[in-house]
């Protein structure tokens, strides 16, 4: 091979292998230089954070690792610990059922709310994940009746009659809706009322057919009460919120102002005043002698409260739709109810789902407020029967840590779902 480099002392003809980058420009060291020690401020912040984490861990870790799980009272814990740092977690094991179900729910029936809780997941799944087969929605429809029967007990005929009323109403609605939406919904409503009215007699006659031991709702307590209030109120307030939002966007002044006043009033007052209303005032407005129990009154007030907030979220969704969607619906000759059902609401609700989920999370957290009107939800159980008992007086941190973790798990789970859903739904026009 003739050399091209004749007359030149040295020419390199092959490339040298690349040198590795300097050690402080690769791998973990580079990462640390960029993310932890970039400049004086960053270094200072890193050192301060590490110190804070160390302080926190040095307090919490021994307390958790050294925890006592099998004592019968705080005194026993103290004896076992003998002055060492350690949590008295045995309160959780000893009062586990009270924390979850309250004091008065019959102990041999705990499997019923537990089963209702487990069944909630298959019932919610088709609603939460739209790629699941739509046939699964049947389980969602059946769930409220099954859960009611499981938790409150009594004969299975009652929830079956309720279900039959809804089915009959739906069939009548389907038959009449092609004529007009108003006729359909009115006919459906009448059918349901008739079925329930007739069914009332059957239920009375067959009170012991496939009956579970009835549990009155004043016996509900613990985290179960939070779950019941949260789930029931969110599901009830959703349709109410849609109606309020549509009313507020309506062109009919009287309807609009009724809705505006309701929404602004509810949003302007704290939930706790509404719970006071449920507790002491609402009874004055009901017919003399009627005896709603407290949990039902509370459900009514929380539902009204949540519906006002959901209405505002949905109104945001309605307002965010391009004007052309409304005009297009008009121009193909759809009337108001058709336009709303077929064109506007499906899109508006899709936009508002993340907002609605946020409302659901904050509502679920707000269910702890019922402890203020002396209902024994999780917070009420801890503050009342457990911390007031002589056995566990003074076991604050273990109990509050448990309550926080329980709420954190649920709320963080829901908000992560909401963010996932937001990414799924991001089919927008960008």
């Amino acid at each position, binding site marked *: 091979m003739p050399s091209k480099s004749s007359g030149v002392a040295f020419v390199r003809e092959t490339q040298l292998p690349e040198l590795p980058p300097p050690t402080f420009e690769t791998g973990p060291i580079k990462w640390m230089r960029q993310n932890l020690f970039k400049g004086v401020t960053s270094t200072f912040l*890193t050192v301060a954070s590490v110190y804070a984490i160390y302080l926190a861990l040095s307090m919490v870790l021994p307390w958790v690792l050294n925890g006592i799980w099998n004592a019968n009272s705080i005194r026993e814990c103290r004896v076992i610990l003998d002055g060492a740092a350690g949590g008295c977690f045995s309160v959780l094991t000893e009062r586990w059922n009270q924390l979850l179900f309250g004091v008065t729910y019959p102990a041999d029936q705990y499997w019923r709310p537990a089963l209702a809780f487990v069944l909630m997941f298959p019932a919610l799944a088709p609603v939460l994940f739209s790629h699941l087969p739509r046939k699964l929605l049947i389980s969602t429809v059946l769930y409220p009746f099954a859960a009611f029967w499981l938790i409150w007990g009594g004969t299975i005929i009652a929830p079956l009659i309720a279900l039959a009323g809804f089915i009959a109403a739906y069939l009548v609605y389907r038959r009449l809706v092609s004529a007009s939406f108003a006729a359909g919904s009115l006919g459906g409503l009448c059918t349901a009322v008739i079925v329930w009215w007739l069914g009332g007699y059957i239920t009375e006659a067959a009170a012991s057919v496939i009956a579970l031991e009835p549990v009155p709702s004043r016996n509900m307590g613990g985290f179960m009460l939070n779950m019941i209030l949260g789930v029931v109120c969110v599901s009830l307030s959703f349709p109410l919120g849609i109606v309020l939002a549509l009313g507020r966007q309506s062109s*009919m002044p009287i*309807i609009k102002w009724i809705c505006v006043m309701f929404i602004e009033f509810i949003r302007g007052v704290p939930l706790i005043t509404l719970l006071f209303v449920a507790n002491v*005032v609402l009874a*004055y407005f009901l017919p003399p002698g009627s005896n709603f129990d407290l949990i039902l009154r509370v459900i009514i007030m929380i539902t009204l409260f949540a519906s006002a907030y959901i209405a505002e979220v949905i109104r945001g969704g309605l307002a965010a739709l391009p004007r052309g969607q409304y005009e297009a619906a008009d121009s193909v000759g759809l009337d108001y109810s058709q336009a709303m059902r077929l064109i506007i609401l499906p899109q508006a609700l899709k936009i508002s789902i993340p907002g609605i989920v946020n409302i659901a999370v904050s509502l679920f957290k707000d269910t*702890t407020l019922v402890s203020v009107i002396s209902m024994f939800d999780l917070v009420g159980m801890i503050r009342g029967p457990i911390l007031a008992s002589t056995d566990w007086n003074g076991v604050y941190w273990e109990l509050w840590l448990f309550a*926080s973790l329980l709420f954190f798990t649920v709320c963080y789970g829901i*908000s992560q779902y909401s963010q996932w859903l937001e990414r799924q739904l991001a089919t927008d026009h960008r």
Partner: protein
Amino acid sequence: MVTETTPQSQSFKLSMLLNDTRYRSYTFQFFSLLILIVLIAYLGSNLIRNLAEAGLNISYSFLGEPAGYDINQRLIEYTSQSTHMRATIVGVLNTLLVAFLACFTATILGILGGVLRLSENWLVSKLMAVYVEAFRNVPVLIWIIIVFTIMTAVLPAPREFRGDEPSASLVLDAVAFTNRGVYVPSPEFQPQAIYVFFVLLASILAIFWYRNYAKNRLYATGTLLPTFWPSFAILVLPTVMAFYLLGKPISLDYPVLKGFNFSGGWTIRGSLIALWLALAIYTAAFIAENVRAGILAISKGQTEAAASLGLRPNRIMSLVILPQALRVIIPPLISQYLNITKNSSLAIAVGYMDVTGTLGGITLNQTGRAIEAILLLMLFYLLISLSISALMNIYNKSISLKER
């Protein structure tokens, strides 16, 4: 073919109330109003019958009667002989106090949290994420109770400050953290103190004048005067000089242990601190998210454009990024303030005497005037909410982008 140019004039038929879209809305509204009126009449008649059965009437005369209970945290004079009206006013002031304190603290913590969460420092941003998620996902009531437990169960009792070798001591010899409350020094004003305040007021005005002067000079000549340190000097120096020249007319009254408790200074009850801190830290987590979203909403092009004009980083922040980010941040910030005010009604869980604790709590239980008390309570919160949202609407109008 003849086209009809004028619509045929029809005589009005009754069926048009249902079939003609022009009239159908009237029918619908009429029936809605009718249902509403019937509903209200039904509830009202139930109310009248129930009240008659219980031998009650609707009357606000209870507000003039002596309350007969004590309020240990108060801003104005109040004894157990004062009227329920006075107790209510004490409660209103307490609500406003804790709401103001919590809003102020939450804003500072929230901005700090939001900025730190965007920090380049991985550890700090992750820590802030943990803070935000931990506080947003646990009910505020639990946080209030946890802070209250710290204030009452962990802090030492006043008697532990006594003796030759006390097991607890005053922080900086001035502030005593006890399980009965926090005792802080209170300022005492001699008559000359008023002049110090005048000087302070004058220096604040002078700062405004100086900044205006610096700005005008910048626009006129292009030379930039320093503003921070001169403003600081104008604020501090004359006031300090006046303070010493007038012979220290403001002194501090330190809390001293007398008998079983501290006296002197101001007492801040543990319930107030619990509510204040818990509301502040909880809401700050939400504000941090708003701040973060606001800063992220400003596109990177704005920063780069400002940099290409030759602005320095802190000027980019203050002149370009912040004014735009604030437009996004402030509306949710104000609704967080509204939330703080409404959540302050949870005071009743820790025994802080806000308006829910006085009017909706003890007054209601003592007089049995549930309807009147709760109506008044709701009107109070409604008034605050509506005025804050009115302010927000004015603000939103003033900053809304002037488009086409």
